[in-house]
């Protein structure tokens, strides 16, 4: 599992010959690279939120998911889904979730997961 994450990371690094790896926005695949700025962060946030929402709706039996719906307390997600969601964001955004990230606040809702992905990719709160 870990080696696959490392492979994904190296692919991202290959696309970033200038070596700006951890600068704002530059590590999110599929998003345009630009100087830091609130508008770009908002775009990235929107893209992540909708991608994750789409994954959740495809994976569990709900037809609608609001941004702050609690994924786990409401019982709509089980433990298998927790690791599936983790693997999805690791794969999609070239990040690795580790021990320090084990905080329910990072995965509680769509908004929380989006904020977590942005943070792992080096975006500041905006």
């Amino acid at each position: 599992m870990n080696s696959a994450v490392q492979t994904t990371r190296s692919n991202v690094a290959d696309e970033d010959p200038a070596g700006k790896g951890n600068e704002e926005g530059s590590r999110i695949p599929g998003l345009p690279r630009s100087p830091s700025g609130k508008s770009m962060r908002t775009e990235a946030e929107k893209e992540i939120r909708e991608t994750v929402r789409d994954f959740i709706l495809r994976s569990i039996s709900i037809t609608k998911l609001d941004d702050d719906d609690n994924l786990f307390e409401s019982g709509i997600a089980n433990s298998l889904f927790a690791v599936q969601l983790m693997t999805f964001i690791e794969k999609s955004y070239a990040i690795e979730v580790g021990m320090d990230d084990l905080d329910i606040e990072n995965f509680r809702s769509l908004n929380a997961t989006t904020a977590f992905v942005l943070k792992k990719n080096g975006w500041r709160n905006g």
Partner: protein
Amino acid sequence: MGDLHGAWSAAVTQATGRNSCMRHLLTDEQERRHKDFKAFVALNVEPFAGQWDREQRIPDAVIALLAKSGYLGCSLPPQYGGQGWDTVTFGLLNEALGRGSSALTGVLTVQAMVSMALLKWGSNEQKEKWLPPLARGEMIGAFAMTEPGAGSDIQSMATGFTSEGDHFILNGHKKWISCAQFAAVFLVFGKLDQRPVACLVPRDSPGLRVEPIDDLMGFRAAGLAEVHFNDVEVPSANLVGKPGFALSHVAPVGLHHGRISTACSAAGLLRGCFEDSVAHAAMRKIGDKSAGGIGMIRSLIARMGTDLEAGSLLCHNACHAEDEHFPEVFEKTLMAKYFTSRAAVQAASDAVQIRGASGCHGSSAVSRYYRDAKIMEIIEGTTQIHEDILGKIFVDQVGGGGK
């Protein structure tokens, strides 16, 4: 006898050739390693597996040989002393070993469960300390989760940790723990203030007692035991992951790798049944024709060969998804383990049937396969748990409910 042996070998070679469906899916290196694994098993495992089964013990020298060959840490990164092999190669190793001895493959299974859970959720300090000896096979790990009153319903486990300064006090009782008879460290699951936790507990901790379980139906040499914890002092630094995440994140990673191992091991057992049955059908004369000329025998072999091909493909699919880090890897692995373990039970039953009385005797490998196969339907999640989870996944994917 020479002719008989030659004909037998030729029949087995032909049967083994049936396992060629995988070839176009493997890289040259993966295929070469699979041949190496099969040669290792033919030399070091198959001739002795029956004896280990009867004695209910795997000799230390065999575990040492697995370690020396790099098999016990094959999936761990080289930085921790592992081989860094991909999951497809790990699957092929388990398939080859499963053909020889399910019990021996069980050592790889639990070593992977502990190692991969630690690789994913351990702190840097924990990984530096524990992974190198696990990777080199100097230390065997055991996954201490099941309790006398908590199997499929693991949420009801009663093992408890209480916090005291810089350490925990552990009390509880685990049962049916594979490799516990010779493990040097246990990944113990329990509750700390009602929150699930996982903690590394060395075997030599005062208050820890291992009680071997004998007379199992199958996996008789896999070193199963009960483990009792009586006021065992464990450093807080041995906590893996964070409190509250042991059952939602730590255990699923370990169980997932255990399922990959078991699925592929069951595919190996299935291949053993197929090879034995085809060879027997070619050799055994009934009246003036071979057993393979009888339609009822052909029916059994047809199902076995088709299940072997389907199971091998499902295993490859799961291993490949793991290597690609696809989120759907969990359901693909559940499907592989669900299919191959059931197919192995059916194939072992049919292989005994084809052999008749000789298949019912301990001198025949298929009698061991018959007993071992059933265990595979129970470990790392029963068939019924797999059906419940997979059924829910499939229903949910089309939005049909199922909560």
